[in-house]
């Protein structure tokens, strides 16, 4: 099942996928363009993994990391499907990152990789923007680059883990104004989903609603105000975002 949360007609509703948009719990149908799409689950700790595809690491002139490069984000950075993300004035490079997001379903500590997928509630699509102009070499990537308001998008659906099966063989692609700019497959992750859960849970307790953004493959390009960015993952969803001027 694909679950969503939408604001519509003065209230917040849980819903599921429908060809026109969302089917609310009481059976009413809301058109995709009529709903305000919220992040589809209650979010706990937000983890992001950098340089987790060998081709993207190479694209950025980094070697393959020996351990996962993990950083955290705050809730203020998050927004849902069809949100607007602001491009700061005067910057040279703002790029999207299409990522598989893994949502934890239960408390997890010291989980071996063979058991890790049993801790997963489901999956969603992430688009995690970067403003490269603001990179500094302290706790890199620093939050000025990666924790900007509404620059980490999640949605439209939380897809039940049972409906996805193996998260290690999913096609990813991004289009900018309809033109394909990024393609990849989750099989090319350096640290796959079970390894990431094993790694994190070995030194900290994960909880329901924690989410791991698992990194992006090569093919990131600069985006501009007015662009429509679609990050899409096979079987998970198609996450639309609009870049606007920061005025």
């Amino acid at each position, binding site marked *: 099942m694909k679950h969503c949360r939408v604001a519509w007609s003065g209230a917040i509703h849980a819903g599921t996928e429908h060809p026109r948009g969302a089917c609310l719990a009481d059976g009413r149908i809301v058109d995709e363009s009529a709903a305000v799409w919220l992040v589809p689950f209650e979010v706990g700790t937000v983890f992001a993994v950098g340089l987790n595809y060998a081709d993207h690491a190479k694209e950025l002139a980094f070697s393959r990391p020996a351990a996962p490069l993990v950083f955290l984000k705050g809730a203020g950075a998050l927004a849902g499907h069809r949100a607007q993300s602001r491009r700061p004035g005067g910057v040279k490079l703002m790029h999207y990152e299409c990522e598989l997001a893994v949502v934890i379903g239960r408390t997890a500590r010291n989980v071996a990789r063979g058991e890790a997928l049993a801790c997963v509630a489901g999956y969603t699509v992430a688009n995690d923007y970067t403003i490269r102009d603001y990179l500094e070499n302290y*706790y890199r990537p620093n939050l000025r680059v990666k924790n900007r308001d509404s620059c980490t998008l999640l949605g439209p659906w939380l897809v039940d883990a049972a409906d996805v099966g193996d998260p290690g063989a999913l096609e990813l692609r991004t289009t900018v104004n309809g033109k394909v700019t990024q393609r990849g497959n989750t099989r090319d992750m350096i640290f796959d989903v079970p390894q990431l859960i094993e790694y994190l849970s070995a030194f900290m307790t994960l909880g329901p609603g924690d989410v791991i953004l698992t990194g992006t493959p090569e093919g990131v390009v600069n985006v501009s105000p007015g662009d429509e960015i679609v990050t899409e993952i096979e079987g998970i969803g198609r996450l639309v975002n609009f870049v606007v001027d920061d005025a």
Partner: protein
Amino acid sequence: MTMWIETGRRPCPARWPAGTVYGALLNYRADLEALGPRMQAAPYNAPPRAPILYIKPRNTWIGDADPIPLPPGANALQVGATLGLVLGRPCVRATEETALDSVAALTVVNDACLPHDDVFRPAIKERCRDGFCPIGPPINRRVDAAALDGMVMLTYIGGAVRAEWKMADLVRSAARLLADVSEFMTLHAGDVLLIGSPRSAPLAAPGQRVAVEVTGVGRLENPVVAAGNAR
């Protein structure tokens, strides 16, 4: 996480902290001076410009008297008293003059970590372990710069004061830090911003009791224990 009460037995809110806990790195002037020429060399290549932040996630939050587990293989815990600014309303694109208006409460925090020399990559494994953020209750009060300037941050190990610092030791004052962070992101009501603590903070071993105090705000005391079940 355990529900908890502060020293003095005052209960804290049921959902606390309500938002994200951010901390400022390298906001202690002596830390920058100690890095000195290293900041010009790889991998840093330049001194920091904007505030460098990290996050203390919810698994790190504990209360007064809760044990801080030190993982096997680690023989020392770095502990440091700091002040948490608790936001009462959104702080975005603020100026140094207006930033403190967004702060509704203060809290005392022990920003614990495993010692680490390298500050190039986010120190998740060092800073984000379970129990590595003892945090006091929010003390509601009107905050002004003069009151903050008079506060002293004290760190105790085994009952003895091992570190002591004040606002004047910071690169960015609380108001300046809030304003500079609010240039690139919104701090929301319920978020907490830790204003920094010395990287050269004292070390504690399993079996020792550590305490942190912010004068006029509160005190937390926690035992450091060897973790049994962590790898």
